[in-house]
């Protein structure tokens, strides 16, 4: 078979495989084609680590409660070598793990999928004891003094609660300082707020939960106050000074006792990863397909731990960036500095946001070029020269980070998201280009690189595209087919049409 025919065959095969798999998942398994914002499912992965001090280790961990609104689609415990038991004590679910051969660092995982039903504010009244007022004497004096400074007495409850939390957060307020440091009994800001609100006559509870944000890794438990306002329970975050919606948090425990008890271990830590996932119709389809052990679902990204799923969610986007590079280089004819450097820059833009990313990139490369121009005069050997540029880049990172932080703009700290080796090479290549072809050529390549990176960023940062690719990784086969097809395209590039334009006038 000639190579042209092979390419045609391959492209047709890849596209039909891709479209076929997408159609199968859509038509047979009922995956939604376009993600719908209302039907969100949250993946929660709890990671417990500790150092075993005796071979007999036992842990107790609060499991999140399923309320009327919050449903668990699936929950599983991943703890090789441990026996797991589900215990219900006075209405609360605990997981208990025990083993008799624990040595060294131990890691346990709990994975679950959650979705919320109905109006979240209609959360059921939970029969859990309220927090009680323990302050007396001097503490109450200080608290009352603080409450007096809060002027919004006439305003509605929500505004007043915000104002009280704001007063508590004022560093200069002496009463706030005393309450937080001397009368908090080491129980934190949320507890102090709950005491204050009880003085105001509110019913409160302390709760601990996990905040639900997409692709959040390694977050720790969040303390919140539950406040009853007009017969409704609302969640309040004393640190952020705002109310938190019920469907943005998974409550792990009411009260402020520790979540985890470890016997026979120390340095225990609990961390959570959360990942926003597809819609309920997707998950129900997935769940039913898994029950029938459908290989297309069983051997897919969804069977990985959530932390890895997060990584893959990002990895799946990289081919899109590569596609942008292929189109811009081979169909448009834009010059970039380094073939796939724009994709890596686009990945950094995902962390920094576009405008800030471009500013930081220009800043680092610009300052780097000035510093590098001095190296040109020293005539260093290649590897030491690039190594020096790398040191320059780190110094520039540190300078931008520290300066911006000192001036109160912490955006400068995001500079660390740029890949420094790539930037060093970019500076090196551009510097050589400057010496050989002049600043004009450097300008063309820089603009080309940034344009490519920005387009790749716009594509990769689009959540609809990201969700769709995550739902249908088979689309990558279609992307591959397009890349291969462009690879054998022998027609004119846009830049050819521009370049040979004078030929038309002859």
């Amino acid at each position, binding site marked *: 078979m000639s190579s042209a025919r092979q390419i045609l065959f391959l492209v047709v095969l890849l596209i039909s495989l891709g479209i076929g798999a997408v159609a199968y998942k859509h038509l047979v398994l009922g995956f939604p084609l376009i993600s719908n914002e209302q039907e969100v499912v949250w993946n929660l992965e709890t990671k417990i680590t500790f150092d075993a001090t005796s071979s007999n280790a036992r842990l107790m961990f609060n499991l999140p409660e399923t309320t009327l609104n919050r449903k668990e689609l699936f929950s599983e415990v991943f703890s090789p070598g441990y026996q797991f038991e589900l215990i219900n004590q006075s209405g609360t679910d605990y997981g208990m793990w025990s083993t008799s051969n624990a040595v060294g660092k131990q890691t346990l995982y709990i994975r679950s999928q959650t979705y919320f039903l109905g109006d979240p504010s209609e959360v059921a009244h939970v029969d859990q004891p309220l927090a009680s007022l323990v302050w007396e004497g001097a503490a109450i004096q200080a608290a009352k003094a603080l409450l007096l400074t809060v002027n919004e007495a006439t305003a509605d409850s929500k505004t007043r609660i915000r104002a009280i939390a704001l007063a508590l957060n004022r560093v200069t307020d002496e009463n706030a300082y005393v309450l937080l440091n001397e009368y908090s009994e080491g129980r934190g800001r949320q507890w102090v707020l709950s005491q204050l609100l009880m003085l105001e006559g509110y019913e409160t509870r302390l709760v601990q939960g996990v905040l639900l944000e997409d692709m959040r890794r390694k977050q720790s438990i969040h303390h919140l106050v539950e406040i009853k306002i007009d017969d409704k329970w609302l969640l309040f975050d004393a640190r952020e000074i705002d109310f938190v919606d019920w469907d943005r948090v998974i409550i792990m425990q009411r009260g402020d006792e520790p979540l985890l008890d470890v016997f026979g271990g120390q340095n225990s830590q609990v961390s959570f990863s959360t990942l926003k996932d597809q819609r309920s119709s997707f998950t129900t389809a997935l769940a039913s397909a898994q029950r029938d052990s459908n290989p297309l679902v069983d051997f897919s990204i969804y069977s990985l731990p959530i932390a890895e799923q997060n990584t893959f969610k990002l990895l799946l986007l990289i081919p899109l960036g590569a596609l942008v590079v292929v189109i811009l280089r081979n169909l448009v004819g834009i010059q970039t500095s380094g073939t796939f450097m724009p994709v890596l820059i686009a990945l950094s833009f995902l962390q920094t946001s576009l405008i800030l990313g471009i500013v930081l990139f220009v800043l680092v490369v610009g300052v780097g070029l000035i510093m590098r121009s001095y190296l040109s005069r020293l005539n260093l050997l290649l590897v030491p020269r690039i190594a020096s540029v790398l040191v320059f880049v780190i110094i520039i990172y540190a300078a931008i980070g520290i300066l911006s932080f000192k001036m109160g703009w912490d955006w400068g700290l995001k500079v660390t998201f740029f890949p420094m080796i790539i930037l060093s090479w970019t500076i090196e290549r551009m510097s050589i280009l400057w010496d050989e072809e002049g600043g004009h050529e450097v300008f063309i390549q820089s603009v080309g690189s940034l344009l490519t990176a920005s387009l790749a960023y716009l594509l990769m940062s689009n959540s609809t595209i990201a969700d769709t690719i995550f739902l249908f990784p088979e689309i990558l086969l279609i992307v591959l087919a397009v890349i291969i097809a462009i690879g054998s395209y022998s027609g004119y590039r846009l830049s050819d049409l521009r370049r040979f334009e004078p030929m*038309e006038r002859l």
Partner: protein
Amino acid sequence: MWGFASPKRLRALGIVGMNKRNVYYIAQHNPRHLYPTVDDKLQTKDLCHSHDIAVPKLLGVCRIQQHTKDLIEFLKPYDQFVIKPAKGSGGKGILVVSGRDGNCFIKPSGVRISHQELQRHVSNILSGLFSLGGKTDNALIEDMVQFTDDFNGFSYEGVPDIRVILFKGYPVMAMTRLSTHASDGKANLHQGAVGVGLSIKTGKAIGAVQHNNPIKQHPDTGRVLTELKVPSWEKVLLLASRSYDVSGLGYLGVDIVLDRRYGPLLLELNARPGLAIQMANQTGLEPRLRWVIEQEKKANKVNDFKCDLRSKSVLTAEQKIRMAMDEFD
């Protein structure tokens, strides 16, 4: 329209674009394993020697950093020489010395450089400053070419070279690159050198471009470029055509200079020659490349060879030149 040519029109002119060159001509006619012979000028020179193709005389090769110390001693007998990186591209890292003044070397531009500077330059070449991908390299020391006077007034501050595009050994298009003030004495079209298309039949100028725009006169000397004619044209073509047998690359750019003493000398070979030559010749490469494929098919059929694009040609360089000179303007 809007500064863009219509693809239809360009196709009618037979213009080869970047993708076509890469996908079709380079990928299908230039086997990858032959690249090192053209990318490394030392290998090219060795091959040329064994095929009796005229090249500038090699005075010496510097291969390791320690040898840079002995360089000044080695260069004593020579007043004029060129130092170039074996794997450099686009004329990068080439140092021309045209004379001496006491302890200094003099470049053609009149700039003096010290012994230390020359040693450092060679050291840079060896460490790979100018080579593709920064790989360590060798430094070639060559005899300086004594250019003929035929280009006087056509070139400013620098020396012109002749680029011939060979397809399967047939010269299909040629141009000469004239340096200008803008190009800083370099014969590099990107930097503003003038490209003058040359008739394959006669070696006479056809048209000229600078910065992709057609021009009539040299921007610095004012000479009318169409008056240019390359002397001993057939010799130039023959030298070019024979380098196909040396390299084995089907689609090849050959750079040639004219030396007063030795006639045409092969300077370097290029496996990825640029496409600006079409502008200078005011015509596209495509019909000529197709014509070559036709000729090869015919010639091979006569000799009962399998009709394969990659099979070795049965015609001699002289025959191919004759055919090309008869066919192309």
